[in-house]
């Protein structure tokens, strides 16, 4: 996290705000609700209280405007700059402006007013931009559900104002995973049209064969309707689909687009109802089978017939000698299965039926 120079903050914990005008994109009550919720995000973790004024000058004056709107910091039309706010102080200090050339919404369809307002009000209270990708105060817009503050945001605002003396329990989002953490584990991994996607917590890394540095992206910013945690994923190149598993549901992607008709229950694949999640999944192109790993066992699904092969589940340890008995994630490349378990990666030869190499899990992330 960062603060503004001189750690600008309000000298009183009782801060006033006023909504000067409203966007026509939303009902007035929706705007009121978004702003109130955004303020509550910060008051929940500090001693700050926010009182609404309906006229006159408040500490935080909130307004919607486009292009040049009176502060010599013009907006730029649709997209690009979404909003800005001034750090605590007299006059324009604390004031928060939203670009009216954006379309504001209360869901993921366009820019979510609550999320942007929570970020901007962070500035109005003294928070500058964070370099932490999972933080609310990260400068780039991303849609997410659930509690908006990360641990980084909470630390930052409490460094200015202290904690809430009457706090109810909040659960801040954990910081973004560090790709060079030697103990890094994966949630899921899959190919997608020549790229490799690796899922961890609320993020995924995108690896392109010609670009050594992986790109870290919030899952929700690419697929708002996919949950924050992915259990398993695999690509069926013949169908040009990637299947994402989370809990008892699965989603299908065609490229980066969600396929209609999903999510579906994983039991549609033929798994018993007792299976509540899949740990890892991998498609073996040579055989047309998809292997689904759950706890210490695995299943074989025939993509051509759409049925589970007979004789399954089977033991992972028995059929993949040298492998651990559980799998976090798996991918298949040129005759080799790459099993990820905790911070270790096993390169398993499908033909030789043995482990050829053992590597660190994050060795594929250019570490």
């Amino acid at each position, binding site marked *: 996290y960062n603060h*503004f*120079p001189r750690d600008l903050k309000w000298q009183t914990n009782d801060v006033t705000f006023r909504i000067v005008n409203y966007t026509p994109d939303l009902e007035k009550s929706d705007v009121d609700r978004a702003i109130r919720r955004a303020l509550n995000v910060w008051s929940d973790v500090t001693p700050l209280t926010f009182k609404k004024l309906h006229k006159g000058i408040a500490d935080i004056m909130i307004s919607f405007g486009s292009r040049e709107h009176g502060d010599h*910091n013009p*907006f730029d039309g649709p*997209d*690009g*700059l*979404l*909003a*800005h*706010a001034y750090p605590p102080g007299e006059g324009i200090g604390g004031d928060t402006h939203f*670009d009216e050339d954006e379309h504001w919404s209360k869901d993921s369809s366009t*820019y979510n007013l609550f999320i*942007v307002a929570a*970020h*901007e009000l962070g*500035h109005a209270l003294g928070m*500058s*931009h964070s*370099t932490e*990708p999972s933080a609310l105060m990260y*400068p*780039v*817009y991303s849609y997410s559900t659930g509690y908006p503050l990360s641990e980084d945001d909470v630390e930052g605002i409490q460094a200015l104002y202290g904690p809430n003396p009457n706090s109810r329990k909040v659960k801040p989002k954990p910081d973004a995973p560090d790709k060079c953490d030697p103990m890094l584990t994966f949630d899921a991994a899959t190919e997608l049209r020549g790229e490799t996607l690796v899922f961890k917590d609320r993020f995924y890394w995108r690896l392109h064969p010609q*670009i050594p*540095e992986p*790109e*870290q992206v919030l899952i929700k910013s690419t697929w708002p309707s996919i949950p924050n945690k992915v259990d398993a994923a695999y690509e069926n190149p013949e169908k040009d689909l990637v299947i994402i598993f989370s809990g008892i549901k699965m989603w299908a992607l065609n490229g980066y687009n969600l396929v209609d008709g999903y999510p579906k229950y994983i039991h549609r694949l033929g798994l018993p109802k007792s299976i509540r999640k899949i740990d890892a999944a991998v498609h073996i192109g040579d055989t047309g089978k998809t292997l689904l790993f759950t706890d210490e066992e695995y299943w074989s699904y025939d993509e051509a017939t759409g049925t589970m092969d007979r004789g399954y589940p089977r033991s992972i340890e028995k059929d993949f000698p040298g492998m651990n008995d559980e799998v976090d994630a798996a991918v298949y490349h040129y005759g080799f299965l790459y099993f990820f378990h905790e911070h270790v990666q096993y390169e398993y030869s499908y033909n030789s039926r043995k482990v050829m190499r053992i590597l660190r899990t994050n060795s594929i992330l250019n570490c």
Partner: protein
Amino acid sequence: SSAGPVPSEDLDDWLLAEKYLRHFYDLPVGLQGRRGEPSGHFTAKIKEMQRFFKLKVTGNLDENTLDLMKEPRCGVPDVGE
């Protein structure tokens, strides 16, 4: 200037980067150099931006850097007052 040539030859990308760095990283006006021959200030600001966003710090307007500059974001500068 010890800066090397900019990989992206696209004038729009250069102008985007110049505007972005001026707004968010306090690149002084008139010190950006020329397309194809960026000044040391320009390169240093690109590096500052790449460091902030945990990109590979090259000082060049590579694809990842330009993509990030095109993302919708908050208008408050990332550095300075």
